[in-house]
């Protein structure tokens, strides 16, 4: 297990390095931000001076070298837009994003897993049909559209929840539902399918035959064996949640890191984009590693040698 973890950690470092190189090249090969940042009446000479002062006129490899060296020391440079260290600006937005992502994930799991199990057990019942229709809508409705509809219904018409910003629990409701819906639908379908497979298995028939209580049969024998694909999807869904958060955070004016990234891309604020992408790469690598470890805990048959 330890050897496995060390091997994976080394691999993870390479992934992050690769991502850093890729994002740097993509950003810098598509032009520099001088023209975007300077006011329109600036002369060509003033733009050239700005470019020079910011170091954008140096050869690409020199720029990358100084970027990499500083980044190794935790310095990603100052945001061009804010004039403050990019790392700090990104990190201070992480808690809001984590809060939203985890509440969306928690909501999805809490709703989707029990309904998925029930739908599988009562296959072709009215409940199963309703669950499948819900899953279809949840997976096909665009987040953008769903967000606006929820705002209009629960915010403007009914006035139950605030429509934008961060605050207490009330502020969390609409963004959580919007962000969680897709994942919820995905998990519900998967739980149902996975349970259907397990329910057909021989060991369940045996358990049933030896008189195990139906509820214990379901949760202990069936669900435990259906868990593996569900856990895998939950982990990968965190990645989906991040990409969907770009839209959710924008619609609900949620002060998270995805919204920061969108604005930074619009402004060609390199340092911020680089930091956000590298942080995201780190997060995904860590999640994957944790998932592997979690597998072993869930299923004693899995051993990493």
């Amino acid at each position, binding site marked *: 297990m330890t050897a496995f973890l060390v091997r994976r950690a080394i691999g993870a470092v390479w992934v992050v390095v690769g991502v850093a190189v890729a994002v740097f090249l993509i950003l810098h090969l*598509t*032009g520099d*931000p001088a*023209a*975007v*940042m*300077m*006011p*329109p*009446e*600036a*002369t*060509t000479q*003033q*733009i050239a*001076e*700005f470019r020079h*002062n*910011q170091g954008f006129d140096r050869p690409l490899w020199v720029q990358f070298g100084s970027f990499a060296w500083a980044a190794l020391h935790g310095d990603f440079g*100052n945001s061009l*837009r*804010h*004039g*403050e*260290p990019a790392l700090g*600006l990104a990190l*201070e*937005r992480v808690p*809001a994003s984590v809060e939203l992502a985890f509440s969306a994930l928690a909501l999805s799991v809490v709703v989707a897993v029990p309904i998925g199990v029930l739908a599988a057990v009562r296959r072709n019942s009215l409940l199963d049909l309703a669950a499948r229709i819900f899953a279809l809508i949840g997976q096909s409705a665009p987040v953008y559209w769903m*967000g*606006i509809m929820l*705002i*209009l219904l629960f*915010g*403007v018409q009914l*006035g139950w929840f*605030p*429509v*934008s*910003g*961060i605050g207490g629990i009330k502020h969390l409701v609409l963004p959580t539902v919007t962000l969680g819906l897709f994942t919820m639908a995905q998990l519900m379908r998967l739980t149902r399918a996975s349970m259907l497979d397990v329910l057909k298995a021989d060991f369940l028939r045996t358990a049933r035959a030896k008189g195990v209580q139906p509820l214990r049969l379901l949760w202990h024998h069936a669900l435990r064996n259906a868990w593996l694909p569900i856990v895998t999807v939950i982990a990968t869904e965190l990645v989906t949640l991040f990409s969907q958060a770009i839209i959710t955070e*924008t*619609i*609900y*004016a949620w*002060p*998270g890191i995805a*919204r*920061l990234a969108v*604005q930074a891309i*619009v*402004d*060609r604020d390199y340092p911020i984009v680089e930091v956000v992408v590298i942080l995201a790469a780190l997060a995904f690598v860590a999640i994957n590693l944790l998932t592997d470890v979690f597998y072993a805990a869930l299923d004693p048959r899995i051993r990493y040698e």
Partner: protein
Amino acid sequence: MPYGRRALLSFAALLALSLGGSAALAPAGAADSTVTISQGVDPVTMDPLKRTITPTTNVHYNIFDTLVRQDREGKLFPWVATSWKRVTPTVWEFKLRHDVKFWNGDPLTSADVKFSVEKIKDPAEGSEQGPRVATVERIETPDSYTVRYITAKPTAMIAGYPWQVFIVDSKYWKEHGDDVGHSSGYQAEHPMGSGPYIFKSWRKDEQLVTEANANYWHGRPSVDSVIWKPIPEAAARVAALRTGETDLITNVPAQYQLQLAGGRNTRLTSARSIRVLFFAFNTLKPGPQQNKLVRQALNYAIDVPAIIQTVLGGRAYAVNTPLPPNFVGYDPKIPFYHHDLAKAKELLAKAGYPDGKGIDMLINAPIGRYNKDKEIAEAIAGQLSQTGGHFTTKIQEWTTYVNFTSSRGLTPVYELAWGNNSYDADNTLTSLFTSDARLSTYANPALDKLIVDARYETDPKKRQAVYDKSLEIIHDEAPWLFMFQYEDLYATTKRLAWEARGDEDIFCDEMKLK
């Protein structure tokens, strides 16, 4: 009904009280004298000497002071400076008020003005405001309340923007390691101003809280507290206004105007924008657009009022030249190119392109930069195709597009909009029509000379005569498809008394609550 509302209000107050300590501690009525403003984006920094983006400077206008202010017609009026005059052709002198104090009690003096301008001019700072004070060679301070701007060449003040410089507390900046030639970054989050509203707290992308400055030299502003709460998505901004979560929203898309104007709790306010949208011909690159007759013909082929009606819901004003009517230098005698397809075809035939044969033009346009930029370009391409020529659009993201405008690389036709908050012809004509201007794709030495002459002409009548002549040339030469001046749309809750300004600025000390 009023009875029911009052009952509801007292219930809400009870609820607020029961919700715990912080709400209960707020002074009575505090909730009602707070105004929340939602722009599309958060300010990017509280250091007022760096950036030029409107949503950021809108906050700065309320926490910092400037030497002068500009009214709704673009006329300057005294603010921290009580008077100003040109003492010699290269020296502008400003006299300052004696009673202006920063929030920490430091008096605002000429040294602070000098420090602020020098900080902007310092290349190490990388300030985008540099071009605004480029004409200022140095600053002199004969005494604590006199400032002299020394320019290299005799300059009418409109040629730079010295009044747009926010004045910072030089003593406070030095105490925090922000001397000239050095920036600690401290000011980006800890501003010290002298403005009508005092900066209290800021959680980025969430909210920025300011409170009325009780000791403001111009009197305590009427609204107790102003919260800046950005909402990026237009539909969400409109929703937040309808629920009363915010009191003022900017950049209202035209499709919401009926809903908001007829809203129970909302109203619209609008102003003629300082921004004029146009399609320029790149006359520096080869192609039929180098032929004046072709350019005139295409101006006759478009139907601007129809585009304004269908694409912008009527919220724009067609222009006959690059200048809108509320600008100094505007000439009402110049006719419009009215929609006349027959005349367009006739001119094209005369130019050697009968039925538009041989005309194949690309219409470049950005997306998401100006209100309905892409839609307008598509409508123009459709109308121009009526001439028989072939017109297609190429739409690009602004960050890519703007790099091409800088290198004059967009051809043969490209869309831009120009915002000129000096309300004066000089900025527009110099930036867009003189041969060596970065954004100009038209070169005419005779016009260059007229524009320079007008800049240094001090007699307003003679100056106008020079502009009349310049605009006649521009109209006849038609280096643009002349389009329109935007109307900027804002919406507020009904309790807020505030009217939109064409220069996109928001001054909270002009606000009142009903």
